[in-house]
């Protein structure tokens, strides 16, 4: 049967029509074999444009459609739906991209018009060989895995659990809470961070729909959207959660003090058996094997002796759980930039240089000083405090990107110093103040009124080498003040380094484990930076919070909720529809060489052991075609991208 093809050339307003003579392209298309209708329209994607196609399909009995317009990434779905509505299988549509690949990149109108004609000819020749296809449907397991118990992960877990869906929340530390639990106040409202966080933490701990696995890590992931199997290692706490009442007697009796380098940011101490903070969820403490006297020297057992419920279990071992989930939300957060990488800032050498997280703990009422801002000696109140912005951020030597939160937390720090040490002078050394969200700029103005000295200049060095008597015994902050065009040396007692946010040290390994990717800076890559910041290129794997890029609490909460909404939408549908554009193996031709297994970037091919033949797992196949090219016996074919289709398209392009 001869095909009846309709061709529709779009002007895209002036986007295409300015560079391409669309009328002559449409006239040319009408001369191509099989084309019985050829039209052009100002906006094919608009309602009238789509109706044009539908009417022709119904009235002229078209069997194939070609739309010459923008990239199929934007409107292929629009035109496929138009075809469907008029009864044509949507895979019998082909698009010729005469905008991104032609009008926008070709200056000469004649050349652009010729190129558009070639692209249309290729599409017309190809569409003849296209086959009707039907999408696949796979069921979705209702449980969701959330990795990371910071604020983004907490929010995602609560949204889903409140909607009635089961959630497994995995956190690597003994308690959920993440970085937000370490903070004293939040900008710009100066809410007590713990006070607004702990109710959410409690809700997670008590929620009937949430399985909380703290002190646990994801070991491996297999499966695909709707049907993942996740192996989780639950590390031995040496404390039986069901028996422990969280009375803390074990922590009081334990004789070993350990510097708390995680929750305490290195500024406080904890015991060898510990729960990181008073409001920890769960309350069950863990024994830090490395520092426990019993584990190291074979005697002590103070915790066991005093535990009123007999909850200590020395023989406990790591446990492994296999959990089936339909979707995964990664909310693994960030790591603070290590300022030792900028040796001229003296961190680690000059004792009164602090990191921002150290300063948060210093300000916290639950911190080592009970919220008193003091020098490293634990007693002296500083009279002059310098806050250095952009440490490790906006600096091509370290990270070129802006860490988003540092300006605002630096302003918050300045406020806290003014509040607690009214006599103290505060100097903020900044490049630009970035305060672009609701209430942020107002907060900056508040600090200007409070008398903070704002010095616009990147700090060159923090020195302990005095040049004048006034500088003796001080830390001297050296910077170029770019507003007055002079070098300045500002003697202070305390320096706070506003360190930037970096990806977690194991972000790349995590990305590999979950089949997603990291960008140049190491943060997880979203499917689309503008229009799909929550999804990844792997179906069923979503990202939320600072693992996607530096962001503040409100954004992390918004992303956590957004990821949960996306997942809830998928679960409520009960199944996912998968593009039928995928590889299939002709078993008769397959020789079982397994070359396709090694090249498939999505691990979508398995070897059927009973008959030594490759098999494509439809739900995992992304239709990239790598296996098709790699298959020597040509046993793998590719629906919607068959050899016949591609050869026809090339012939059309080359007019041969």
């Amino acid at each position, binding site marked *: 049967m001869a095909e009846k093809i309709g061709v529709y050339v779009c002007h895209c307003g002036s986007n295409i029509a300015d560079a391409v003579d669309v009328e002559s392209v449409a006239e040319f298309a009408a001369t191509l074999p099989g084309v019985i209708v050829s039209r052009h329209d100002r906006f094919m994607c608009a309602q009238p444009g789509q109706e044009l196609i539908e009417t022709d399909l119904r009235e002229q009995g078209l069997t194939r459609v070609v739309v010459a317009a923008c990239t199929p990434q934007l409107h292929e779905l629009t035109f496929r739906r138009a075809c469907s509505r008029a009864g044509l299988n949507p895979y019998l549509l082909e698009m010729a991209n005469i905008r991104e690949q032609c009008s926008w990149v070709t200056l000469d109108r004649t050349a652009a018009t010729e190129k558009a004609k070639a692209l249309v000819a290729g599409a017309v020749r190809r569409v003849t060989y296209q086959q009707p296809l039907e999408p696949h449907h796979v069921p979705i397991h209702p449980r969701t895995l959330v990795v990371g118990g910071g604020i983004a992960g907490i929010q995602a877990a609560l949204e889903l659990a409140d909607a009635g869906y089961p959630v497994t929340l995995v956190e690597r530390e003994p308690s959920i809470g993440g*970085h937000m639990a370490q903070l004293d106040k939040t900008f710009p409202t100066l809410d007590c961070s713990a006070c607004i966080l702990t109710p959410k933490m409690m809700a997670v701990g008590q929620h009937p729909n949430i399985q909380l696995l703290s002190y646990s890590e994801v070991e491996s992931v297999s499966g695909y959207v709707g049907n993942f199997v996740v192996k989780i290692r639950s590390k031995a706490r040496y404390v039986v959660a069901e028996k422990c009442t969280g009375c803390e007697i074990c922590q009081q009796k334990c004789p070993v*003090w350990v*510097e708390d380098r*995680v929750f305490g940011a*290195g500024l406080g101490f904890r015991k060898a058996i510990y729960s990181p903070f008073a409001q920890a969820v769960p309350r069950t403490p863990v024994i830090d094997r490395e520092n426990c006297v019993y584990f190291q020297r074979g005697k002590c057992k103070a915790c066991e002796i005093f535990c009123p419920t007999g909850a200590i279990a020395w023989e406990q071992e790591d446990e492994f759980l296999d959990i089936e989930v339909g979707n995964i939300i990664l909310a693994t957060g960030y790591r603070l930039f290590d300022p030792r990488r900028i*040796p*001229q800032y003296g961190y680690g050498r000059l004792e009164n240089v602090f990191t921002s997280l*150290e300063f948060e703990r210093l300000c916290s009422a639950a911190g080592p000083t009970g919220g008193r801002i003091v020098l490293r000696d634990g007693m002296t109140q500083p009279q002059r405090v310098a806050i250095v912005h952009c440490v490790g951020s906006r600096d091509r030597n370290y990270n070129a990107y802006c860490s988003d939160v540092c300006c605002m937390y630096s302003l918050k720090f300045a406020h806290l110093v003014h509040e607690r040490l009214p006599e103290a002078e505060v100097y903020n050394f900044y490049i630009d103040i970035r305060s672009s969200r609701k209430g942020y700029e107002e907060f900056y103005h508040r600090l200007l009124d409070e008398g903070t000295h704002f010095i616009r200049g990147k700090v060159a060095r923090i020195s302990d080498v005095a040049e004048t008597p006034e500088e003796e015994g001080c830390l001297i902050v050296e910077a170029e003040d770019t507003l007055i065009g002079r070098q300045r040396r500002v003697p202070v007692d305390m320096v706070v380094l506003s360190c930037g946010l970096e990806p977690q040290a194991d972000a790349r390994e995590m990305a590999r484990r979950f089949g997603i990717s990291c960008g140049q800076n190491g943060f997880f890559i979203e499917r689309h930076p503008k229009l799909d910041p929550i999804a990844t290129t792997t179906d069923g794997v979503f990202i939320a919070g600072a693992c996607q890029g530096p962001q503040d609490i409100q954004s992390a909460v918004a992303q956590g909720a957004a990821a949960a909404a996306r997942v809830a939408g998928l679960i409520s549908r009960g199944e996912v529809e998968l593009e039928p554009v995928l590889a299939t193996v002709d078993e008769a031709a397959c020789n079982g060489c397994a070359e396709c297994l090694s090249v498939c970037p999505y691990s979508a091919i398995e070897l059927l052991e009973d008959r030594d033949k490759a098999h494509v797992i439809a739900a995992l196949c992304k239709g990239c075609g790598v296996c098709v090219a790699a298959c020597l016996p040509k046993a793998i074919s590719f629906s919607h991208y068959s050899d016949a289709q591609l050869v026809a398209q090339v012939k059309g392009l080359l007019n041969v």
Partner: protein
Amino acid sequence: MTYAFFPGCSLAHTASAYADSIRLVAERLGLDLREIDDWNCCGATAYFASDLLAAHALVARNLALVDGDLDQVVSPCSLCYVNLRRTQQLLDAGETLGNQVQDALAAGGLGYRPGRLSVRHLLDVVVNDTGLDRIVSEVVRPLYGLRVAPYYGCLTVRPGTGFDDPEQPASLDQLLQSLGAEVVDFSLKADCCGGHMSVVSAEVAYSLLRRLLQNATEQGADLIVTACPMCQLNLDAYQHRVNRHFGTDFRMPVIFFTQAIGLALGLSAEALGIGKEIVPASPVLEERWSGEAPAPERAGRARHRRRGTRLPTPGAEGVSDG
């Protein structure tokens, strides 16, 4: 290993002690340094500021004169090192100015094949090629008892694509430690000595020199050890003028790192050029250089102990985080 050696003008005159000690130490350590035949001045700072093409051509002539069998040029002078590297990188990049320099070489019957040479600082070669292990194995009289301030100056490690960190270099520290000296925390170790400012604008140089001398003195250094003839000259020859200008009383000997190596290798101080410096090093050497190993520091500071109200200080590595 054999290197082409570019001594630079200073070594023939103000830094003859550097030249003497390099010769002796290189011999002992098996470093084959072959002086480039008929080399000329690198142009120092002035020429590059006034005429780029001529300045590069002047340096390029030295690169073109390097023996065809050798692929590395070593300079003991930090300024020569920077200039040689700058021209080498220009020629290797092969852009307009580099091509003009090539034309200038060709006019003199010379040529340089881009990519043929790498330019090294002597400190880099000694620490990274000869290696600390080799040097330690030759040490006969460790520098025990001496407290030294390692001084790199501003050019040895800048611009920061060289062999050590541009802000907090460590190679000279490690070298001196392995010789047995106690290295003080000299935070200005990569700051400027004033360079030619001592001639052009003396007061600027004096205040820069004073900072260095003050910091080294406050840190308890017995002497400053440097890897640059300009730095040594400024700190040594202008020290009395600094004292006169500021009413200070610095008496800080400044020696070259090759002299320090030579002393530890048991070479004669006189042959190493000790005594040619203006602020004499010999009183300090006689008084402080004990030859006795210091008592080892008590190992394994208990990091778990709480000390009153004191807050813990950050560890050597790994930022504390959640």
